[in-house]
């Protein structure tokens, strides 16, 4: 029986602040939300969390799920995220929540590994959902809503065959291929028959379901049938039934302008009857009754900033520019001259004629007139076909020129009803005047955005028309080029200018011929290609988008000392002295600056200087040979070899314990132990002197106190050195990547050219001799820029450093403390391929999104709806431009919500202020032309936005605007009025009800929760005893809940005891580890012993192995299909229940003995081998590691 819980019980289990005091207020809100929703779900089986955007709904929902599970271990959950990127985000958050917010290891929520103790399967489509359900149902599942779309374009026969292949007994005639709608429904019912029963379904961004079962999109119906909606009962599918008990819906914008949207969502899951009063949108008089009904299952909290003694709710700290202008608040876009006014007038006349045509009945779809965004020809940019294993994410009709085109069913509207007429005028204008038709709105927007190249401020621009992504980027790229050219003209030495002009001309010529093609491949890409996981820096060949991407990235133009070639041939080339520019000097970090480093090391280690010199050379050579087979000795590699040799020597021999400890920490975290192999260094191996005192940017930066405090703070000697060193390395590598790969590269290159006085590549070797000069020039420049108070290299580097912790948390959760060697690669990939302006359409490029979450490039992100949900873009951006307007307030709110979240730039800027200026708020722009029909759609959307606020907060007024169409005849006759934003403080109509928190209820502990401490103690004692009683070789332990080692098997029958001599016995690796049994309150001791591999070609051995196993009679054979090398990894596995009060040592010994002996016998008989543990060690460690598998 599932019971309600009190908030104090929940507080004992969840810490939403994760120990961060700054988060305590929001943490309390999240805790209250989780408890209230839990208790609503216990009573009503459905609940809705409608907190404002950016308040951590995901975490609140994960808290609800964890509370249910903790007290009911068999509780199973199905998560449905809107699309792939958000699905991945949920998975990450689930691991984060478990690790950071769930307090104790209970082996129900949190395992010994600090990961979820229950299984989670994330599926990319419904077929995979089925497949995973057949493998193991005792898990939670994470799906995406797009999986339920089943596009009509799919090959139905293939879909049917795939299903039959998974479910052998399925009668394929149940899936009629000739009726697509019928096929979809039956497909859903088959899936329903196979999937497990879920105790709770959690649907993220559930406003996507607001049209309910009546939606034009079959997706909603398929979803409801997969989950077993009553309407799907069908004799042909006797196992069809409701497959869930409860549903939790999440969205900051649960309705548009009508309560029926709420009813639709709830009814889709079969609970509509209990809130049927919301179904009738006509009965407006009973608003209070509806509010009461909603308040029984929906919770909404609102966020606010405390400035001085006043609370600013979102609507107050967002400064909306509703009059259309972009330069002066409350001003309209002014048309600059008569010519533009005439053009706009002409276009309006044409648009009015089109709208007036009987086909369109004086109406148009909001946001779906081409002329609102551009007068250029609207050509279609279509998404490339997606990976066949994934669902089509966009699900848009091919004919659409707009995002979110399911707003209408009409193909003409999807194309933009004014598109053909506008195209004709644009074409005629171009033929007559040989230039493109000017578009005042686009011109004003790009003009206002270009100031960011001076200020470094970021802006997010949403468009509706896909082609606008390209057009806006093009205009902005041209402005950027003008800005950069002017900077370079100003700062290049006179002697380099002539050559530079030639290069710039070459760029313009190349751009003219290649630009459009390159745009399509840069911007309209699939998610699958853009996760940035496999691309290395070397893959960057530059782009033709703008001068930065062409000249400062890739190799740059031939024959020229470009930014690109400087990076590739100097900074990133191991042979160049510049390759150590952004490295650290570890010996100096340990010892400080000494006039004679060698003598000093000799002194503190008790060695003779001459002997030490020889030893360091031998050690460095051994280190070099361990990492390289090269016969040459590139500068950077030799430098690191000497660094390693010194650190190693200090760690082994230093008499000063503090310095010795520092050396040991650095050796462990950065280097491997050097094994001297007796080989003498080759004669041409460079000598010690050149490498011991290498200066780098960071060693010299540290000497300038007024800079280093802001960019690279010194190690705090009072803190733990290891913690400080890890942080220093993470920061150094990040600063290094920012300096080499983004905007700061321009200044570094300029300084190099100033020392060379030319950009001719023939002279670039001369730059090698100017290494120290360049470092000092660079630091001088930073010093000077610090006082300039403008956006420049200094401001970018110091901004990264100032917000270092935030950047690491949000952008680099994969960075681990114990793998500092990988830092350079991780940051290098993340920050490669930068551009000042980026566009996004058709799919999400995660690397570009990650870059937008940091200071520096891209400064402007132009995007369609693909970034509307799920991606956080708030950390360094506080300007949003709704260039192409969405037709509903929820989309508008979702879009603005991307930059309005906890820890946003605006929140950080305002939270401790006493007073605030208007331009410090989030700036929300709605550019539009007043004297056009565009005004009508903007006003409609403003009205709906205001109405949404009234409906979800106190005073509610009702007006009916639940259509996306505008009747121009009617609207034009209505006198124009400004729809101002609501600016008074908001108060939610649906706060958490106090009685749901059960504050006075007694603390409850789960009867299922295991005592982790006792279990680990017992595990430790039995493994110690195993070591005492058996002949074992133990591997280095990586945690407290696992034990990896090798046993010896005597006569194929038993394990060798501790005091026995190993005579003709065989070795057999094994692993023992603790795990929880999903769905039960039990801990298992699991034993794995590997047999080995058999290739696909030896399939016949499978039957033989099964027969042998039957004879041996113990343990289960497990197989992992290793497709890469076309073989199966085989092992024997077995488990026993592990309980601190009842498990005896003899049971553990028996488990180990029988598993290991069985595996060894099978290995001997089947493979004729006796493989040592080294062959299996990696996979054994992976099995007990804490990675997300």
């Amino acid at each position, binding site marked *: 029986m599932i019971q309600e819980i009190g908030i104090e019980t929940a507080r004992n289990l969840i810490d939403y602040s994760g120990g961060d005091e700054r988060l305590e207020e929001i943490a309390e809100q999240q805790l209250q939300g989780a408890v209230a929703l839990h208790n609503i779900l216990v009573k009503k089986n459905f609940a809705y969390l409608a907190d404002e955007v950016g308040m951590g709904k995901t975490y609140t929902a994960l808290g609800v799920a964890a509370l249910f599970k903790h007290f009911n271990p*068999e509780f199973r959950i199905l998560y449905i995220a809107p699309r792939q990127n958000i699905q991945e985000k949920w998975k990450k958050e689930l691991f984060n929540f478990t690790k950071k917010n769930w307090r104790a290891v209970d082996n129900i929520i949190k395992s010994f590994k600090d990961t979820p103790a229950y299984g989670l399967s994330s599926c990319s489509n419904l077929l995979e959902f089925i497949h995973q359900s*057949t*493998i*193991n*149902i*005792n898990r939670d599942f994470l799906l995406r809503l797009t999986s339920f779309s089943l596009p009509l374009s799919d090959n139905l026969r293939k879909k049917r065959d795939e299903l039959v292949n998974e*479910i*052998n*007994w*399925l009668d394929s005639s149940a899936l009629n291929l000739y009726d697509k709608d019928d096929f979809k429904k039956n497909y859903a019912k088959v899936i329903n028959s*196979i999937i497990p029963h879920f105790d709770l379904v959690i649907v993220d961004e559930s406003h996507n379901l607001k049209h309910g079962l009546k939606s034009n999109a079959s997706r909603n119906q398929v979803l409801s049938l997969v989950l077993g909606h009553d309407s799907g009962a069908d004799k042909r599918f006797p*196992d069809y039934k409701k497959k869930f008990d409860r549903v939790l819906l999440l969205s900051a914008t649960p309705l548009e302008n009508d309560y029926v949207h709420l009813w639709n969502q709830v009814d889709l899951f079969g609970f509509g009857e209990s809130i049927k009063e919301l179904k009738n949108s006509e009965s407006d008089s009973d608003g209070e009754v509806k509010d009461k009904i909603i308040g029984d299952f929906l919770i909404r909290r609102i966020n606010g900033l405390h400035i001085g003694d006043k609370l600013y709710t979102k609507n107050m700290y967002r400064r909306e520019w509703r009059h259309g202008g972009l330069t002066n608040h409350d001003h309209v876009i002014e048309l600059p001259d008569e010519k533009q006014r005439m053009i706009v007038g002409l276009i309006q006349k044409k648009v009015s004629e089109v709208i007036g045509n009987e086909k369109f009945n004086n109406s148009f779809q909001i946001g779906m007139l081409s002329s609102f965004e551009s007068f250029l020809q609207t050509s279609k940019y279509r998404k490339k076909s997606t990976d066949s294993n994934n669902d089509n994410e966009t699900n848009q009709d091919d004919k659409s020129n707009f995002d979110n085109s399911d707003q209408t069913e009409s193909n003409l509207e999807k194309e933009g009803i004014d598109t053909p007429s506008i195209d004709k005028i644009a074409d005629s204008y171009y033929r007559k005047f040989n230039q493109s038709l000017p578009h005042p709105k686009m011109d004003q927007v790009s003009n206002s955005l270009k100031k960011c190249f001076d200020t470094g401020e970021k802006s997010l621009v949403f468009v509706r028309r896909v082609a606008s992504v390209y057009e806006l980027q093009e205009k902005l790229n041209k402005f950027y080029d003008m800005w950069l050219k002017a900077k370079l003209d100003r700062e290049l030495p006179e002697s380099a200018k002539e050559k530079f002009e030639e290069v710039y001309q070459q760029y313009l010529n190349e751009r003219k011929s290649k630009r459009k093609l390159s745009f399509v491949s840069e911007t309209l890409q699939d998610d699958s290609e853009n996760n940035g996981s496999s691309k290395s820096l070397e893959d960057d060949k530059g782009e033709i988008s703008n001068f930065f991407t062409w000249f400062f990235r890739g190799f740059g133009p031939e024959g020229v000392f470009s930014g690109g070639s400087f990076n590739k041939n100097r900074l990133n080339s191991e042979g160049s002295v510049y390759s150590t520019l952004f490295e650290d000097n570890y010996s100096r970090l340990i010892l400080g600056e000494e006039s004679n480093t060698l003598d000093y090391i000799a002194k503190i280690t008790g060695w003779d200087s001459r002997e030490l010199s020889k030893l360091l050379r031998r050690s460095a050579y051994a280190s070099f040979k361990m990492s390289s087979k090269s016969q040459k000795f590139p500068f950077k590699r030799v430098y690191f070899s000497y660094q390693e040799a010194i650190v190693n020597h200090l760690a082994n021999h230093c008499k000063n314990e503090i310095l010795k400890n520092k050396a040991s920490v650095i050796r462990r975290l950065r280097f491997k132990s050097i094994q001297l192999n007796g080989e003498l260094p080759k004669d041409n191996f460079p000598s010690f002197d050149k490498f011991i005192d290498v200066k780098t940017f960071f060693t010299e930066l540290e000497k300038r106190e007024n800079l280093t405090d802001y960019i690279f703070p010194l190690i705090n000697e009072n803190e733990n050195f290891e913690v400080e060193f890890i942080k220093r390395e993470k920061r150094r590598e990040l600063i290094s990547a920012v300096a080499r790969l983004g905007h700061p590269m321009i200044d570094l290159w300029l300084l190099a050219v100033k020392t060379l006085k030319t950009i001719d590549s023939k002279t670039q070797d001369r730059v090698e001799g100017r290494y120290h000069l360049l470092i000092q020039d660079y630091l001088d420049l930073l010093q000077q820029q610090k006082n300039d108070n403008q956006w420049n290299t200094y401001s970018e580097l110091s901004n990264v450093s100032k917000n270092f912790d935030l950047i690491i948390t949000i952008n680099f959760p994969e960075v681990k403390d114990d793998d500092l060697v990988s830092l350079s690669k991780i940051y290098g990939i993340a920050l490669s391929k930068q551009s000042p302006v980026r566009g996004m359409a058709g799919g999400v490029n995660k690397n570009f999104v990650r870059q937008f979450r940091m200071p520096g490039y891209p400064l402007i992100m132009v995007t369609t709806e693909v970034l509307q949900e799920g991606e956080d873009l708030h950390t360094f951006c506080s300007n949003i431009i709704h260039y192409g307007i969405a037709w509903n307030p929820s989309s508008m709110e979702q879009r603005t919500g991307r930059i309005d979240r906890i820890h946003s730039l605006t929140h950080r800027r305002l939270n401790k202020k006493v007073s605030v200026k208007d331009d410090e708020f989030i700036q929300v722009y709605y550019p539009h032309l007043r004297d056009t029909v565009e005004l009508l759609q903007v006003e409609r959307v403003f009205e709906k936005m205001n109405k949404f606020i009234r409906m979800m907060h106190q005073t509610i007024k009702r007006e009916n605007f639940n259509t996306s169409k505008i009747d121009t005849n009617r609207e034009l006759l209505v006198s124009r009025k400004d729809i101002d934003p609501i600016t008074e403080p908001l108060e939610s109509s649906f706060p958490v009800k106090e009685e749901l928190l059960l504050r006075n209820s007694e603390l409850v502990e789960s009867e299922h929760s295991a005592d982790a401490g006792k279990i680990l103690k017992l595990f430790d004692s039995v493994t110690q005893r195993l070591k005492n009683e058996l002949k074992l070789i133990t591997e280095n332990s990586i945690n407290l809940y696992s034990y990896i080692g090798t046993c010896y098997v005597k006569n194929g029958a038993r394990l060798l005891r501790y005091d026995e001599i190993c005579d003709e016995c065989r070795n057999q690796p094994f692993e023992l580890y603790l*795990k929880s*049994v*999903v*769905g*039960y309150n*039990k801990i*298992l001791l699991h034993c794995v012993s590997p047999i080995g591999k058999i290739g696909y070609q030896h*399939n*016949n051995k*499978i*039957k033989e192995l*099964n027969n042998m*196993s*039957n004879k041996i*009679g*113990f*343990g*289960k*054979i*497990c*197989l*992992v*299909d290793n497709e890469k090398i076309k073989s*199966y990894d*085989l092992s024997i*596995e*077995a*488990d*026993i*229940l592990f309980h601190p009060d*009842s498990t*005896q040592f*003899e*049971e553990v010994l*028996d488990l180990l003995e029988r598993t290991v002996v069985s595996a060894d016998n099978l290995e001997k008989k089947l493979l004729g081998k006796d493989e040592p543990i080294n062959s299996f060690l990696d996979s054994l460690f992976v099995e007990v590691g804490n990675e997300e598998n």
Partner: protein
Amino acid sequence: MKKIEKLLKEINNERIDHSFIRNRNGHLSVEFLSGRQQRIFIDRKDKYYKMWSVILSNSKVEEFGEVKLIQNIWNKNRQTDVVGFCIDKKNRLIGSIQQLAETIDREELIFYIHILAKECDRLEYLFSGKDLN
């Protein structure tokens, strides 16, 4: 077998997670809320109890193709706690659990029987679409 006979007597009609364990003549039957049932047998071999349940008969195993089926169930063994699947000497697909007889107690026995029945019943449904046992 005396110990287990005593324990089995005690757990007759035991309810666990929406199912009942019934002690029939010569075997146990686990009845699930859905109406499905699974038969469990218990043998003593040396110092171990072996609990097992038939999932597919030998004729059904032949229909699927033995090697393909073995690969499938060994893959599934990796994902399944406690229960092991194999093709037995009579060429049937069975699920089984083996534990030391000496130390098994009431609570453990109920757990083993329940998880064995649940996993075998699920696999039976996935392979046959029916409730055969």
